[in-house]
């Protein structure tokens, strides 16, 4: 009630205020559809288990795939009868098997039966090389009423004909992994031709969806076996372990929605869909590990997690010896194109999933450092001031961001020449300090005939059309705007060209050309060539259908997005492609940056919208959060979920976008944000300034320390980004990914692992004195700041310090650091390393370091250093793990290791022997952190000065 009143008054305010739409103060539930207001969802949810009307027929192997016809039950006796009479025509089912335990199930309408149009299959998400991993199925075994095919060593895929069911099981055994349609909820609404008198339109808040093909939704149930929890399907501001949305004890029953929207001031703990969608779910259990299920479908999706006992009255019995989590998937359109991943470990599943949708791109080094953003740094002077204040306060940062106000009337690719008369000069100044600038580009194109982009796009017919065939005209920041049809590769490539140095005026003086030749050497070292990094505030950023042109009359918004019956090229309806639209923008923009740099520089594009595969094109942030403690808390499960579903490079706005954080909240946010894979502070333009030095000396110091922590750990982070790039395993990981058999970690989303060595937990409450931290596993943990040792497998009650959030290094690991703080990561390139070795109970430890040039693609040709450090028997050895393939490109580094700190080593040794040089180096007792005065009793090998690129051993004498 209260919130409704509040909303009402806010609405009034909006009407009166006529200012920026984003100033709305709270999330308005009523404006967004719930399941009951979404006919396909409501219909699907009302269906009863066991009502699936299909039976598999004509099961054969064809081209190495299993294919079958799905016939409606009533007429499968006579497959050739005229289908126009009945509702359902036969469907085509195929099962494909790929390397590494991946099963693909496709179900679509039969093209031979002449459907009104081809249903939409999401293009360009599956890696082009993935189909080559297909295994040619040789043998089809029949078993009772089922067909069985090989899946991988230890697993097989089963198609049961009647009742229809597809599942993966352990070979020969009864133990199941994943199954589809075990509860008989599969339904496939087929495209129809409208007959006279039929009413197919759907209305929501005054908008009519023409639905020219009638209902075309698909739904089915999926069961995960031996599962304790399911995870994934971002993006929701909710817990890491997904809560049941239906079943006994669930009060407000609303499925998890996947529908990309710009949701102002989203609330935490809600199944409501936010800016991006990835229909990929992971299950995990203590007894048999992890499995995954991915549905490649970009239409609106709703997913129920069914609480145990939901099917008590269905009369369906599944093997009861196995713990099971049932889920129910509903989509408005598209086809069934699903992938089953067998695991069995958490990392296996992520790796399997990213072998289909792509590994995360390797970012440039600077992108992994700290970013400073605000809507908006207003003019060149503001930029210069903020930049110099960072130096004045000795706080490093790498990137300064310009939000939408830098443009000329929100015409992206242009500059407001009053506020930014010399963009090149401004960027050159930042670049001289090794810093970069990011500018924003939004997908809405201002409909202004004098705007080159609009003129060209409208002439070429590149815009998405409305149902009547005209350019869709929506209202957004620039006013009347249209949207490019990015699903089309030709339009993507046209868009990509816009980022070229010639086309994006003011983006780039060719820096080296503009140099004073005398200082070339200096510049060559400090400049990495700045980029224009584009934030695609992708999709639906406050954009409204304007059939009424009443911009601020909120009820006119159709969930602030394009109408579902808008048309893309090839007759594709927007409803079919909606969730992937931002993905194509991300792709085209990223390609544009690659082209801009002649294919030499790795692009950096941050997007708010995402879809399966976005990890290939850049980073993602969790959108417009709010400066409150709950949102600080929920940022962690949101980032972990993104990581599980492939998007490793993600972060939340530090400080909270809306509202003014209290200094304590801001400091706590920096302290945990320093461990986000993507570390950026951002703020709304109605908020007070909050650059790190504005809250008194003490808070400045605390924020500086937090940022320094990130810079110190950059070598470790960069190594993890490379791991993600090669394996898909995310930088920030849920605890259970590293401790899969420790049940206490399964629903823990307060703490997370950065790589396999670091555990971090935020402080999410104001003025707390104590906090509980669970440290998993059998090995000990070392406090990152003081080096104090804590036992594993125990929940510790810890005193909370204002100086840092709890962070620990796992015993048995080695973390590479760089302990010299510079203005930006650029100046750290040649700095020496510190290794922190945390010994486990058998006095052993291992860790890795990956180094490359930090910017180009030459690492793909092998131009990198990859070392494994192993400590055992009192000896540290550096081993090469990079391939030694002939013809491999080379990368060299003259960096040395200046310091090695041993945690958990008994005191006493005075010297160490470095081989092969055969030189002795000193051992002394030193601090864990150079800046801190506490804790200085750690064995420190002083100046071993061994090369980071070389083979060597250091023996403690």
């Amino acid at each position, binding site marked *: 009630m209260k919130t409704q009143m509040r909303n009402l008054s806010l609405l009034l*305010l909006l009407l009166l*205020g006529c*200012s920026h739409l984003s*100033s709305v*103060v709270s999330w308005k539930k009523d404006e967004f559809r719930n399941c009951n207001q979404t006919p396909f969802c409501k219909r699907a949810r009302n269906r009863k288990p066991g009502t699936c009307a299909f039976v598999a027929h004509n099961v054969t192997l064809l081209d190495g795939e299993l294919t079958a016809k799905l016939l409606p039950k009533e007429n499968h006796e006579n497959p050739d009868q005229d289908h126009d009479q009945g509702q359902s025509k036969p469907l085509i089912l195929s099962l494909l098997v790929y390397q590494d335990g991946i099963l693909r199930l496709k179900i679509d309408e039969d093209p031979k039966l002449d459907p009104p149009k081809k249903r939409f299959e999401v293009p360009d998400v599956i890696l082009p090389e993935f189909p080559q991993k297909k295994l040619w199925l040789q043998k089809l075994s029949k078993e009772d009423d089922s067909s069985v095919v090989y899946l991988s060593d230890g697993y097989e895929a089963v198609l049961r004909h009647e009742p229809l069911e597809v599942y993966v099981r352990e070979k020969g055994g009864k133990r199941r992994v994943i199954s589809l349609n075990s509860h008989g909820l599969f339904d496939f609404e087929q495209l129809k031709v409208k007959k006279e008198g039929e009413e197919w339109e759907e209305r929501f808040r005054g908008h009519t969806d023409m639905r020219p093909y009638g209902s075309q939704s698909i739904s089915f149930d999926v069961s995960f076996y031996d599962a304790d929890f399911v995870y994934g399907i971002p993006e929701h501001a909710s817990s890491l372990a997904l809560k049941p949305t239906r079943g006994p004890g669930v009060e407000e029953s609303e499925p998890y929605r996947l529908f990309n929207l710009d949701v102002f001031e989203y609330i935490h703990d809600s199944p409501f869909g936010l800016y991006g969608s990835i229909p990929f779910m992971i299950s995990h259990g203590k007894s048999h590990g992890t499995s995954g299920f991915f549905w490649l479908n970009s239409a609106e999706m709703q997913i129920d997690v069914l609480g145990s006992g939901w099917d008590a009255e269905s009369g369906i019995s599944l093997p009861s010896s196995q713990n099971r989590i049932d889920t129910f998937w509903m989509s408005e359109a598209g086809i069934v194109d699903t992938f089953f991943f067998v695991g069995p470990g958490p990392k296996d599943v992520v790796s399997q999933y990213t072998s289909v949708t792509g590994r995360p791109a390797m970012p440039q080094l600077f992108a992994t450092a700290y970013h400073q953003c605000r809507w908006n740094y*207003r003019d060149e002077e*503001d930029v210069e001031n903020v930049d110099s204040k960072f130096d004045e306060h*000795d706080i490093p940062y790498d990137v300064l961001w310009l939000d939408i106000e830098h443009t000329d009337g929100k015409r992206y690719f242009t500059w407001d020449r*009053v506020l930014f008369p010399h963009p090149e000069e401004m960027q050159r100044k930042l670049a*001289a*300090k*090794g810093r970069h600038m990011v500018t924003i580009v939004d997908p809405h194109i201002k409909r202004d005939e004098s705007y080159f982009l609009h003129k060209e796009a409208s002439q070429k017919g590149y815009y998405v059309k409305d149902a009547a065939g005209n350019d869709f005209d929506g209202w957004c920041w620039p006013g009347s705007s249209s949207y490019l049809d990015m699903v089309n590769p030709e339009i993507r490539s046209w868009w990509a060209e816009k980022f070229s140095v010639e086309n994006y005026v003011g983006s780039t003086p060719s820096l080296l050309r503009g140099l004073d030749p*005398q*200082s070339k*050497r*200096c510049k060559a*070292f*400090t400049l990495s060539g700045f980029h224009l990094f584009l934030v695609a505030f992708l999709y639906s950023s406050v954009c409204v259908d304007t059939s009424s042109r009443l911009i601020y009359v909120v009820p006119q918004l159709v969930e602030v997005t394009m109408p579902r019956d808008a048309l893309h090229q090839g007759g594709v309806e927007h409803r079919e492609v909606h969730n992937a639209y931002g993905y194509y923008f991300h792709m085209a923009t990223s390609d544009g940056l690659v082209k801009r740099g002649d294919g030499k520089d790795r692009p950096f594009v941050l997007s708010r919208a995402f879809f399966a595969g976005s990890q290939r094109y850049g980073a993602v942030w969790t959108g417009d959060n709010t400066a409150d403690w709950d949102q600080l808390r929920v940022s962690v499960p949101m980032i972990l979920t993104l990581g599980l579903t492939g998007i490793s490079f993600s972060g939340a706005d530090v400080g909270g976008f809306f509202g003014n954080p209290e200094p304590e909240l801001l400091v706590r946010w920096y302290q945990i944000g320093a461990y986000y894979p993507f570390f950026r502070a951002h703020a709304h*333009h*109605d*908020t*007070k*300034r909050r650059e790190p030095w504005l809250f008194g000396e003490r808070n400045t110091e605390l924020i500086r320390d937090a940022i*320094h922590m990130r810079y110190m750990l950059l070598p470790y982070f960069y190594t993890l980004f490379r791991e993600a790039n090669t394996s898909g395993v995310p930088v920030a990981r849920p605890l259970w990914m590293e401790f899969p058999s420790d049940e206490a970690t399964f629903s823990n989303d307060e703490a997370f692992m950065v790589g396999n060595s670091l555990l971090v937990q935020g402080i999410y409450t104001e003025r707390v004195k104590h906090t509980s931290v669970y440290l998993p596993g059998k090995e000990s943990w070392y406090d990152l700041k003081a080096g104090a040792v804590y036992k594993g497998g125990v929940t510790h009650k810890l005193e909370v310090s204002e100086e840092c959030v709890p962070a620990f290094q796992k015993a048995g690991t080695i973390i590479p650091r760089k*302990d*010299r*703080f*510079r*203005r930006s990561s*650029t*100046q750290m390139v*040649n*700095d*020496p390393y510190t290794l922190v070795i945390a010994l486990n109970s058998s006095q052993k430890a291992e860790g890795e370091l990956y180094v490359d040039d930090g910017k180009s693609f030459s690492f793909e040709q092998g131009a990198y250093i990859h070392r494994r450090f192993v400590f055992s028997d009192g000896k540290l050895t550096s081993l090469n793990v990079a391939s030694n393939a002939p013809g491999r490109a080379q990368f060299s580094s*003259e*960096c*040395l290791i*200046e*310091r090695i700190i041993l945690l958990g080593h008994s005191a006493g040794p005075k010297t160490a022997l470095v081989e092969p*040089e055969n*030189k002795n180096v000193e051992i002394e007792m030193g*601090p864990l952190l*150079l*800046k*801190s*005065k506490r804790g*200085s009793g750690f064995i420190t090998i*002083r*100046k071993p*000065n*061994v*090369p980071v*690129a*070389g083979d060597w051993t250091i023996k403690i004498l």
Partner: protein
Amino acid sequence: MKLRIVVFWVVLCVLSAASIVRSAYSPPKYLGIAPEDEKYYMSSESIKCKDGSKKFSKTQLNDNFCDCPDGTDEPASIVRSAYSPPKYLGIAPEDEKYYMSSESIKCKDGSKKFSKTQLNDNFCDCPDGTDEPGTSACPNGRFYCRNAGHVPLVLYSSRVNDGICDCCDGSDEYDDKVKCPNTCWEAGKVAREKLTRKIATFQEGVAIRKQDVERAIEAIAKDEVELSKLQNEEKTLRGLVQQLKGIIFCVMWYRHTTQEIEESSATSETGTDVGNKVSPDKVTHTTPVNQSDAARVRKEYDESSAKLSKIQSRISSLTQKQKHDFGVDKEFYSFYGQCFESKETKYVYKVCPYKQASQVDGHSTTRLGQWDKFEDSYRVMIFSNGDKCWNGPDRSLKVRLRCGLKNEITDVDEPSRCEYVALLSTPALCVEEKLKELQHKLDLMNKEQPQGHDEL
């Protein structure tokens, strides 16, 4: 003198290093040595620097630490790793003694001691950075550059060898990754000129301020005189007005009663309130007044009371004015009743000290704030509680003051939404002490000029 030598060392070490192979990270002992020199190095355990300045042991040969000023001991030196700064680099002159006094030096925070070989050895030993004034090894370190010809500078040690020239003498970049030309003379010249101009402004400003202050004191005295005069006048006038009021009252009463008597003796009319209330016995005390007298009194009363109210309002405005804070020397007295305007791209900003500040856009005016107070020792004026921002705070304006010859408002800005800042140049800020400070600074700068600079 010492620094001269230091620079010489750097150059030599760097030169010798740069000219020699630097591929291997850990050179075999005799790497980088010309065949004809091999004997020189191998002959004994203790080797002489070729310039004869000192000796070094064989373990010091190619140990990545520069011992000989001429670089004899580091023939294979790898520039990146071996940049070993001269021992006393980055130390402020006043600290030199501290470092040279003994072989064992204390960290300034008292946490521990370090040996002279640990000084600037590119490894951090003191948490406060005492041992690494000349390298980037300590996060808390500070690097001092002398910048002869300009002013000395203290840098965060994170700026040392980071590839960016910070010190105009280039001393912060000595690892051969960048060449930093010495620009101190030019920069110093520019700075000195700038400072000289600033001093000139101050000198003139101080004079203007002096006059302003004198004028203010005069004016305040005048105000006070006027006020006390007015207060006296007010007192007398108030008496007069009272008196006249009494007379008028009496006249009216008299006229009324006589009229009443006349009227009651003739054709009696309705009585008035006044008549009814007045007791007839008082009549005997009043003097009969003729008509013209009465009019005169009336006129006099009107005039006096008008004058009184004028005086009273003047008194009130004078006392109001007196209550304001005009600064230590009353230097802001002249701001009273004045407004300063500045036209930025779209708006006209109007700042009226002691009153209010506003932003004018055509016909609409937005109040940026009411006069609040001075802050920061009269260097900032605060206007607060302006018009409310939609979905934001009340507007406010902070005006920073600086010395200038005219009262002039510039650089109006809105760094945070609805929180404005502006700059006001005014002679009121041209303070003599500050002028002396600047002159002192200039004297120092002039002293720093290197002797015999050829551009002189």
